[in-house]
C-alpha cells in the first residue's frame, strides 16, 4: 500500500471543469443526488429547472461557495474537493476490501477469472460504503497523498472562476471603480494603474464609464448587474458562472444584461448559466441541462432539448414555461 494510486481516469485535458458524482446535503435535506457534468473550453452550458431543484447549489458548488458532501470537482487539472475514493476504480481495486472480496469470490467460483467479478465488487463496495468501514489509516493516508498531489488553494482557483450573483453583490462600501479594482490589486495580479485602466476599458464597453466614481446604491439593477459581470471579468477568468443573473431585475433591464452576456459568449468565454430565460438558452447555449430533484434529468443541445424533450418532467416544465 506504500505506492501512490494512479488515477487512470485522471484529469482529461479537454475539459476545463469536471464535476463528478456530486452530492450535497443540507442537514437532512438532499439537494444534489449525484450530478456529473463536464464543461469544455468555450462551451456555454445553460442549466434550467424548477425552483428548489438544486441548480443554484450545483453552480455554487463549482467554485466551492457550497462544500459538496461527496463528489469531486476538477478545474484545469486541479482538484477542488477531497478525493472521493468511490469515484476511482483504480483506488477501489487497490484497497484491501476489494482484494478480500475478490479472493472470497474466486475461492467460491474457481472457474471464473478476476475480471468477471470486477464490476460486481466495485458496485457492491460503492453501495455498501465498505471503504469507510473497512479500510485503515494506510488507505486514508494514500488517498490524502493523492489529494495533496492535485490540491490547490481554493482562493487561487477562484481567481480563474468568475461568478455573477442573482443579487449582484456589488461591494456597497466601494465605488464602482473600487469594486472592480479591489480584487486584482489586493491579489497583486495588476498594479493599481493597470487595474484602473482596464476597468475604464471595460466600463466603456458597457457604456458606463461615467459611473466609475459613484457608489452602487445610486445604480439601477441592470447597471449593477452589468458592473458585476465586468467586475468578474477584471480577474480574467477562464470560466464564468452565472447564478440567475436576471431573476432580480425589472423586466425592462433584463435585455441589457442578456445582451452583455451574449457579447461575452461571442468572445469565446466558457460559461455556465443558471437561468429561467429560455430565449437566451436557445440562442446561446451549446448544451442545456435540465436539473430536477437533485439530478440531471436531461442533457442536450438546445435545438433538440426544446424541440423534442424526452423526459416527462421536462415536457411538463417546458409546457408551463414556454407559452
Amino acid at each position, binding site marked *: 500500500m506504500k505506492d501512490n494510486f494512479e488515477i487512470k481516469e485522471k484529469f482529461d485535458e479537454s475539459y476545463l471543469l469536471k464535476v463528478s458524482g456530486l452530492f450535497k446535503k443540507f442537514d437532512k435535506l438532499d439537494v444534489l443526488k449525484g450530478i456529473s457534468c463536464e464543461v469544455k473550453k468555450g462551451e456555454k452550458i445553460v442549466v434550467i429547472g424548477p425552483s428548489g431543484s438544486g441548480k443554484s447549489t450545483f453552480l455554487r458548488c463549482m467554485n466551492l461557495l457550497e462544500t459538496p458532501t461527496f463528489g469531486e470537482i476538477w478545474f484545469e487539472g486541479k482538484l477542488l474537493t477531497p478525493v472521493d475514493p468511490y469515484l476511482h476504480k483504480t483506488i477501489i481495486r487497490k484497497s484491501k476490501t476489494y482484494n478480500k472480496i475478490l479472493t472470497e469470490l474466486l475461492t467460491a467460483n474457481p472457474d471464473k477469472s478476476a475480471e468477471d467479478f470486477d464490476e460486481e465488487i466495485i458496485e457492491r463496495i460503492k453501495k455498501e460504503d465498505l471503504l469507510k468501514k473497512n479500510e485503515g489509516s494506510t488507505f486514508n493516508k494514500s488517498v490524502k497523498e493523492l489529494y495533496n498531489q492535485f490540491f490547490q488553494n481554493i*482562493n487561487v*482557483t477562484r481567481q480563474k472562476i468568475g461568478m455573477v450573483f442573482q443579487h449582484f453583490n456589488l461591494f456597497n462600501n466601494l465605488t464602482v471603480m473600487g469594486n472592480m479594482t*479591489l*480584487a486584482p490589486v*489586493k491579489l497583486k495580479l495588476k498594479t493599481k494603474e493597470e487595474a484602473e485602466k482596464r476597468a475604464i476599458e471595460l466600463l466603456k464597453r458597457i457604456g458606463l464609464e461615467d459611473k466609475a466614481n459613484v*457608489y452602487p446604491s445610486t445604480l439601477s439593477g441592470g447597471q449593477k448587474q452589468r458592473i458585476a459581470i465586468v467586475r468578474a471579468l477584471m480577474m480574467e477568468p477562464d470560466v464564468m458562472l452565472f447564478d440567475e443573473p436576471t431573476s432580480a431585475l425589472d423586466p425592462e433591464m433584463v435585455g441589457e444584461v442578456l445582451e452583455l452576456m451574449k457579447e461575452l459568449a461571442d468572445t469565446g468565454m466558457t460559461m455556465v448559466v443558471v437561468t429561467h430565460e429560455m430565449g437566451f438558452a436557445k440562442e446561446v447555449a451549446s448544451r442545456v441541462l435540465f436539473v430536477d430533484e437533485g439530478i440531471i434529468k436531461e442533457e442536450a443541445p438546445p435545438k433538440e432539448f426544446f424541440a423534442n424533450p424526452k423526459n416527462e418532467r421536462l415536457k411538463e416544465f417546458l409546457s408551463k414555461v414556454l407559452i
Partner: protein
Amino acid sequence: MEERYVVLPFYGLWKMFQDIITIFANSEARGYLFQGFWHTLVITVVAAMIGLVLGFIVALVKIAATQSKLMKIPGVICNIYTTVIRGTPVALQLVLMCTAIFAIRGFTPYAAVLTFGINSGAYVSENIRAGIYSVDKGQLEAGRALGLSWGKSMVKIVMPQAIKNIIPAIGNEMIALLKETSIIQMVGSTIGALTFDLNVASTTIYYSKNIPVNSYVTCAIVAGVMYLVVVYAMVLIIKLIERRLRKSER
C-alpha cells in the same frame, strides 16, 4: 432647633445653590473635582480601548469558529468569557480582580481599569458580532468568489460596512462604561490615586472639614453634571464619526 421645622418654598433649592457656590469658590473642592474628572476620563478611555480591542478579537474568533474547525476551541473559550462576564455583576468582578487575582500593592487601580476593559469587551464583542451579521452574506460571498481570502474579504468588504451599523451600539456601551466606572470606589478612594474618580470626589467634598457644604446631594449633582458633560461630548463625537461613515453611502 426650631429652625429645622421651618419649611419655606424652595428652601432646599436655595441651600443647594449656596452649596454650589461654596464648592466652586473653594479651591480644594475644585481640585478634587478636577482630579476626579481627569481620573474618570483616563479610566474610561483606557478601559474603552481594552474593551474595543478585546471585543473585536472575540467577535472575530466567534465568527471564525463557525467557519473552521481550527477555531472551535477558541470559540468555546470566547463563549464562556461572554457568558461569565455578562452573567455576573461587575462589582463582583472588580472585587475579585483587585483582591484575589491581582492582590498586589499599588496595582489595584490598574486591575480595576483592566476589569472595566474586560467587562466592556464582552458587551462590545456581541455588538460587533451583530454588526458583522447585519451585512448581507452576499458581500462576503462576492469577495470570496473573486479569490479574496476570508480574512481579506472581512477586512476590506464586510468590516467597513459593519462598522456603520456597530457605531450606535458601541456608543451606547461606551456611555454605560463611563458611568459604570463610578463603582471603582469599592476598591479604594485615596486622594491622588487613580481610583479617585469623579464620584469619589463628590463624596470627599461632602466629608471634607474645610468645605462647608450642607448636603451630599449637591455634591453628587455637581459630579453628575460633569458626567453629563462628558457623555454629551461623547455623543457629539459618535455623531461626527457616524456622519463621516455614512458619507460613503451617497
